[in-house]
């Protein structure tokens, strides 16, 4: 099982242990483990189809079950296993103790309600605030996430805002009831780079100030390196390497992590060919036996195609590779 040593002496807010997810018997995610301490930002990176988003959705229990099933493992949130929690209890946790923000805020916001009523809703439901008190809090939250003239914004509709402003509104909604965990799934992928920097700086400040545990899901290694303390790298449904940024991304041991870091244009002199990774990511259902990266790996051994590599610790970092760098 992939295990990370605790870097923080405090109890983790979230601890995922050996999580496996199936889609009608086809494994999507296998044996995924990680934990996040209060005030910590953990990055979960990987390419399309690696299972990072379904992992995030399963933590929030937002996956349609069926067809997807939690086939193994535990999702411990403040000590409670969410994997088998009835939906009624889950609903009380979601939006109150745990918040989530998505890549495209437009689809997560209701186009026919004002910003104010959408932020006020969880406050009225979960905290029992009156309409007026809830709107008052909503304005404070909008100010906190850096939206100019928050009182005016309350009466506006989502389509009247820019992408960056909508993402700020989503963050305000996620924070409304003072959660302990924030799951951010590609929160800046749809945003321009200057606005991305603003939003990431905002999330980073919030987790420091509020002691939030943050799970940042992204395909962007550069973003993870800049704002996370630790990272889990996923490939074809498994965590292949995990640990502090300086180890896991600074000097990767797993061949996939190493290839991924080296192939980024920014890591290479302009104009020269990039060290590239041949082939494509195998989709769920077509993942090979043994190590799923073996067919694309320049250092694959016979053993890599036969047996799943075990989790190996090296200092604070762990990896699953038979022939590590």
């Amino acid at each position, binding site marked *: 099982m992939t295990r990370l040593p605790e870097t923080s002496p405090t109890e983790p807010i979230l601890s995922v242990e050996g999580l496996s997810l199936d889609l009608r018997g086809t494994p999507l995610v296998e044996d995924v483990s990680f934990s996040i301490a209060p005030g910590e930002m953990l990055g979960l990176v990987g390419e399309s189809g690696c299972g990072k988003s379904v992992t995030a959705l399963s933590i929030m229990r937002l996956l349609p079950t069926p067809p997807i099933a939690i086939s193994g493992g535990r999702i411990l949130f403040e000590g409670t296993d969410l994997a088998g929690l009835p939906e009624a209890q889950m609903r009380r946790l979601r939006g109150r103790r745990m918040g989530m923000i998505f890549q495209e805020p437009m689809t997560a916001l209701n186009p026919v309600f004002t910003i104010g009523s959408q932020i006020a809703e969880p406050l009225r439901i979960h905290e029992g605030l009156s309409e007026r008190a809830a709107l008052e809090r909503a304005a404070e939250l909008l100010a906190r996430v850096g939206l100019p003239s928050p009182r005016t914004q309350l009466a506006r509709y989502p389509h009247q805002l820019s992408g960056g402003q909508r993402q700020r509104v989503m963050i305000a909604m996620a924070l409304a009831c003072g959660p302990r965990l924030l799951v951010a799934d590609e929160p800046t992928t749809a945003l*321009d*780079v200057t606005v991305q*920097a603003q939003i990431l700086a905002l999330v*980073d*400040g919030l987790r420091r100030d509020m002691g939030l545990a943050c799970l940042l899901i992204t*395909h962007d290694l550069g973003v993870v390196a800049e704002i996370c303390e630790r990272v889990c790298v996923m490939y074809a449904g498994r965590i292949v390497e995990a640990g502090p940024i300086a180890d896991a991304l600074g000097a990767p041991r797993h061949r996939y992590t190493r290839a991924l870091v080296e*192939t*980024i244009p920014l890591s290479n002199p302009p104009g020269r060919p990039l060290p590239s990774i041949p082939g494509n990511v195998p989709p769920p259902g077509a993942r090979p036996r043994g190590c799923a990266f073996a067919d694309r790996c320049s250092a694959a051994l016979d053993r890599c195609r036969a047996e799943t590599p075990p989790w190996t610790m090296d200092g604070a970092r762990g990896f699953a590779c038979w022939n590590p760098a």
Partner: protein
Amino acid sequence: MSDETVPLLEVRNLVKHYREASGARVRALDDVSLTVRRGEVVGIVGESGCGKTTLGRTIMRLVEPTSGEIRVDGVDFASLSGAKLKAARRRVQMVFQDPFGSLNPRHKVGVIIAEPLVVHGVPGAKARVAELLDLVGLPGEAAGRYPHEFSGGQRQRIAIARALALDPALIIADEPVSALDVSIQSQIINLIGSLRARLGLSMIFISHDLSVVRHVSDRVGVMYFGKLVELAPTSALFERPRHPYTSALLASVPRPVKDVVREKRAGAGLVAAAPGEIPDPANPPPGCAYAARCPLAEPRCREAVPPLAAVETGHEAACWRSGEVAAREPITSA
């Protein structure tokens, strides 16, 4: 046809106005001038709504310019129509961002790649398709298969093969690698590099991703709010930006992993260098469009639009205070 003294592409004072439903006029392209030399790759960067896609489409005449000149090999593209435009279009081809939307799902790959040849009445399509597939690194049997049988990276290879079919002088590539995963993105960047070396391709490479543009371009133009605000050789632009917006863009990009590991910044890792967002296109500010977000802005910036002017040989910037723009610590990596 190719006179070496004439630039391959010369865009002069190109303007494209749209009218919004509300009746407001939006200046998608506001007096853009640009040249592309033979064998040169010019990168165009900017954020959404800056006009970079409109620029590519207007050069192709997929969008009609409001005014201005587009000369390809000295021939004015903007004034052509009918058969003459069709003939001239052979010289310029386009590659789009979405390799799923840009290929007809009901046609076999061989038909898709041969289409430009058929449209322009070029004989020997079958042999040419085989040659093109080989050129972009796909097996010959790909011709008999449908687009859905290919991955995103392979589809982009097909789109590139189609763009090369007529042996164009210029390729306009609009975000050609943005929809691809990192490991696939580098395969396509390498393909573009090798095609360039083998065919002497000239290209306009449009992207929001500065690191990709830096990797493939000889010169880079930065667009903001419909205008070209800086144009320079790639290394000069990245090492000594002379427009505050370019400088903010560079500061917003995550650094190479190795540099981050070497020196983790205190506090927030990323620098939010440009506060606020772009102005409302229907209601543009009077002076420099970047003034409201700019740390160097002074009263005249809010009154008069700075022209794009030479600050060094081959380096142009549209800023009243271009001499005071701070260089970012250079993006390097060991």
